[in-house]
């Protein structure tokens, strides 16, 4: 049984098509990344999954049943645009949101305290929300989606606007939750985050599905022809015959090898002239795959030159 299943979902606002023919499934206990640049239809898709809007056509099922509001009790949702009652005290707020999810006031407040401790915001508990920093407010919202211990956690851009320390803290929390067997769906335009976290991804662009499947499987479709070199000294080895193209950032080079070329030959050439501190052979990054996919699916110049915020 899949936790979430979308079949040929389509949604249009007036003349603008937000989501066109989107299908994917999310398996229990997996971390699923919904990827795409800004305005590609991620939020529209998520809003349909949790029933804020209704698809024009296609079907959505949760926990193996067709969508029904009662199923939302098992879902935790963090919207992209964060919102809390500004004048409310943090604990009142968390208790209230917990109660809306069907918890008793005591359970809600007990769990809220545990979470606040875990996310290091205990000192904020008795303050009003408007007095807190944006990062703190985001943590509170994060907690509010988890209080009722949902089986499915849906987060729209959960790490945007956070400093690296807090972003890592929340990522680690998500990884922990996944270990406990929860299913997590999150959207982001940051491809690097997805590479680390996700088992499965779905890449959308201009409201169309570009790529989907398991992270490992997608990567294995591509040849291992990327090389990262950190070096000091002479950079003339970058003209080596195995190299298809190279970007030199001065001491750090990203190289794409020619088809069938051997990376070892390049390494040998490099150590003759320069001092190599790092030499890594790898698959293309998700970002490179994305750009490649987008340019090959749409030949129109403006979408080919799409900018990915990475």
């Amino acid at each position, binding site marked *: 049984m899949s936790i979430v299943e979308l079949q040929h979902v389509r949604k249009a*606002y007036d003349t603008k098509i937000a989501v066109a023919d989107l299908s994917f499934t999310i398996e229990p206990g997996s971390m699923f990344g919904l990827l795409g640049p800004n305005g590609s239809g991620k939020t529209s898709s998520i*809003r349909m999954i*949790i*029933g*804020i*809007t*209704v698809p024009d056509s296609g079907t959505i099922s949760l926990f193996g049943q067709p969508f029904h*509001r009662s199923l*939302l009790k098992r*879902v935790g*949702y963090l*919207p992209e*645009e*964060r*919102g*809390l*009652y*500004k*004048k*409310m005290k943090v604990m009142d707020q968390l208790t*209230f*949101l917990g*109660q*809306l*999810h069907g918890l008793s006031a005591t359970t809600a407040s007990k769990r809220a305290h545990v979470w606040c401790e875990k996310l290091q915001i205990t000192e904020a508990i008795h303050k009003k929300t408007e007095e807190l920093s944006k990062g703190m407010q985001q943590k509170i*919202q994060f907690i*509010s*989606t988890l209080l009722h211990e949902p089986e499915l956690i849906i987060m729209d851009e959960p790490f945007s606007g956070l400093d690296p320390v807090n972003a890592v803290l929340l990522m680690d929390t998500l990884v922990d939750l996944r270990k406990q067997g929860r299913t997590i769906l999150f959207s982001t335009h940051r491809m690097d985050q997805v590479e680390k976290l996700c088992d499965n991804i779905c890449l959308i662009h201009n409201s169309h599905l570009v790529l989907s499947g398991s992270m490992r499987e997608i990567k294995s479709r591509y040849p291992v022809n990327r090389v990262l070199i950190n070096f000091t000294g002479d950079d003339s080895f970058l003209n080596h015959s195995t190299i298809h193209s190279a970007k030199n950032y001065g001491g750090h080079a990203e190289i794409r090898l020619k088809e069938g070329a051997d990376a070892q030959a390049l390494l040998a050439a490099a150590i003759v002239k320069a001092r190599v501190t790092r030499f890594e052979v790898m698959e293309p990054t998700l970002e490179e795959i994305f750009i490649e996919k987008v340019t090959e699916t749409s030949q129109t110049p403006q979408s080919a030159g799409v900018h990915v915020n990475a």
Partner: protein
Amino acid sequence: MHNIWLIARREYLERIRTKAFLVATILIPLLMGGFVFGSGYLASRTKSSAHIVVVSSDANFAADLKHELLTGKSSSMTVDLLAPSTSNGDDTRATLDQNLTSKHGDLTGYLWITPPSQSNTRPAFTYVPRSAGDVTTEDDLSAAIKNVITREGLTRQGMGASDIDALMAPVVIDTSKTGDSRTAFGAAYLLFFLMYMVIMLYGMNTARSIIEEKTSRVFEVMLSTIKPDEMLAGKILGVGSVGLTQIAVWMLAAAALGATPFATNLIGGGHAPISATQIFFFVIYFIFGFLVYSSIAAALGAITNSEQELQQLNMFLVLPLAFCFLMIFVITRAPDSTLAQIVSLIPFCSPLLMNFRISLTTVPPWQIGLSFVLMSLTIVSILWVASRIYRVGILMYGKKPNLSELLRWLKYS
């Protein structure tokens, strides 16, 4: 139901705890009390204490006028009599004018009586006041002059002084059988305005509290757990209970104040001007009125995204109330006319007008019942429409919907 209760409770507690609520609850009755008692006190004190000079060559007439002015029921005037010094009186006029223009002058004004050129016409009266705005003294003067002239005329017709007094005595109408209709009417008026004020105040509060979710972007979390109609219903109930609490506090304060000897002295005491039935219907119609207008406000809140946009639309809240206000005159004159019966059954008007009619006349029970049914239906249907607009409108923020879009939103599930 549980969710509606949660929303309403949050709304209620958050609002009750604000300073604005405390201030309004305490200050408004203080101000109102101050206003009522203050104006009552002032009214009891504002007898005209003017100092007036009457200049007349007719000493008899002047003396009669002085007598009339001094015995007037609400007057404590000082009246001096003067005869013009010369035939045209220029000197006297000059002295009096000088007194009036001088800062230290003690005169409020002077009345100049020019004798008639022919014996059967009235004399001419000229009043020169210190301040042109002193209407009270002018009114007192004109009433007194009229009385004196009437008396003179009657005397000339050969009527005795006692007969004239009997004729000119004020008329008293005995209303003890129907109760004091003036106070009953006043009470109805008071209730009308109280309701009008509270509906305006809290109706707008409901609309604002619905916009709150949009401006703080909480609605997306809320809508992923509860239904929009639960949300709107909870909001209306929560804000409404705050209104009821406030009214209750005010009423209790008024009752407590009304029981003090000071108040009974001023009002006249002895009878309760607002009867228990009136209070009963007031409470019922207040609740219904509040719900009807809150649901309109909720719909306005659902359409708009910000306070500014709301301000532009609040005429939809004000217009029906203004209509009720106009109708109040029709109903006062003929509370049982067909027009009065019809308008008091319109759901937007029932809370104010049916309640008003009930306190003025005997309304058939079926009309009262029908007004309840109509109001309930209106509330439910407005809420139904509003929650649909809310749900769809919320996700299309940024631009204001036009009418055709609103209609299309209704079709969305």
